[in-house]
């Protein structure tokens, strides 16, 4: 892999390890902000945040990208379903809506997010539909959205 990945791995010998295809795995989620701060020196934006539900864990794939060249960095970390994780919005403002979306569709809580509300679904929607254990209950079938307060 390239120099930056090597440097990053050397800087956090206990928290990071290399994974397949140039992906970096974050084994200690408490170090997330420190690692991302380091990433910010080389990358401009959070390109996308892909959450994958692998019960009983959520796998978060942070994809960072630049405004020059073709470099991409994927940072992967696992959290338990009921756990929360630090928000990276202070470091990468482009994470704002992405984290709201992850909260909306998976129910992941991001500590320190300035405005953690649902974004795609209505505020009173019951459940988080992209979870693998999501089932269409009667409550969802009969949901009309009429209780929404404006």
């Amino acid at each position, binding site marked *: 892999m390239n120099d930056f990945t090597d440097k990053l791995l050397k800087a956090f010998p206990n928290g990071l390890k290399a994974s397949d295809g140039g992906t970096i795995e974050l084994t200690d989620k408490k170090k997330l902000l420190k690692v991302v701060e380091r990433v910010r020196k080389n990358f401009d934006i959070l*390109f*996308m945040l892909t959450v*994958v539900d692998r019960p009983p864990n959520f796998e978060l794939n942070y994809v960072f990208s630049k*405004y020059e*060249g073709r470099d991409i960095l994927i940072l992967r970390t696992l959290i338990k379903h009921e756990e929360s994780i630090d928000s990276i919005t202070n470091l990468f403002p482009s994470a704002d809506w992405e984290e709201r979306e992850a909260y909306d569709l998976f129910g992941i809580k991001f500590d320190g997010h300035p405005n953690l509300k649902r*974004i*795609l679904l209505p505020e009173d929607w019951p459940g988080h539909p*992209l979870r693998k254990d999501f089932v269409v209950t009667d409550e969802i079938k009969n949901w009309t959205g009429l209780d929404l307060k404006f």
Partner: protein
Amino acid sequence: MEGRGIELNIGPVHPATHGVLKLVADIEGDTVKNAKVEIGFLHRGKEKIAELRYFNSYFPIVDKLDYVGALNWEILWASTVEKAMNLEINDRVKYIRAVMAEIQRIMSHLVYIGSFGQDLGNLTFFIWALRERELLMDIVEEISGGRLAPMYNRVGGVFYDFTDGIADKINTALSKIEEKVKKEYRAMTYENSLFIMRSKGIGIMGQKVIKENGVTGPNMRASGIKRDLRKDEPYLVYDKVDFEIITENDSDVYARFMVRVREILESIKIIRQLLKDMPKGDAKISAPWIMKVPAGYTLVRHEMSKGEGAMFLVTDGGLKPYRLKIRSPSFYSLQALPLVLEGCKVADAFVITASMDPVMGEVDR
């Protein structure tokens, strides 16, 4: 009334324009103090649907992501699955896809020009732009059988080869469009004093806002950032054609409009080159309809008409995706919108929103 503003709800507006977008603006007098963007009115759970469908059966769903740029998304989805399967497609298919992608880009930019005019209150633009788009629509219809949602691509290839004599028809249509854009559009829009008054110097989106919010595509190029995935990370056959990355430096509404107008001319240039070098061969599809895709992670990104679109596909070796995440460029443009709207006049808010070219189908997914 010092310091007491009004909360103004703008939208949700009708899907025939940009889609259903709602702005909640705090206004004081005639000035927008701050604005909130509410999205999600067109959410159809496309990422969830992906987990329930075979890879090839997902094409009709991708089509309705960005309903004015359907072919671009189709090609991205096909490329993603092909990369996940390690499948090599033949040169002719690559050329066909590149031609279709550029035709779609022109169509998408024409819709942008049209709906922009509509938001300015000038319906003539809209009719004119759609008239030119119709020329290309007919070509897409002849090739694929579809118009708005062509469903032309498939994993491993395309459904039909180009029909006989289509190259001449495309060239004729392109010449017409080129002439219209260079003459009629110039008189009506970019050298028209009324148009310039409405669009110059408003809605400035600086490089800082762009880089903080992950804005890409023409919106970014209007601020002088020279980046285009077709050049920076060439896919299909873009490394074999000669074209320029269009940039403007003013970062205002006018610059964002001009980038699109000039990109239409650039796309015309690309299509002409591609048609000239189109290799012989058959566009035969090399993958079955229902197939297993090896387990793994695949990330592919392409330059859409609205910016950098990407798909992150997670597979588990089964017949259906385990998870699909779609990065929509408009999503990020809208994230930056409140910052751009700050301090503008209410009447300009519509124009600024239109200049970002949001298509809610791809924002809400």
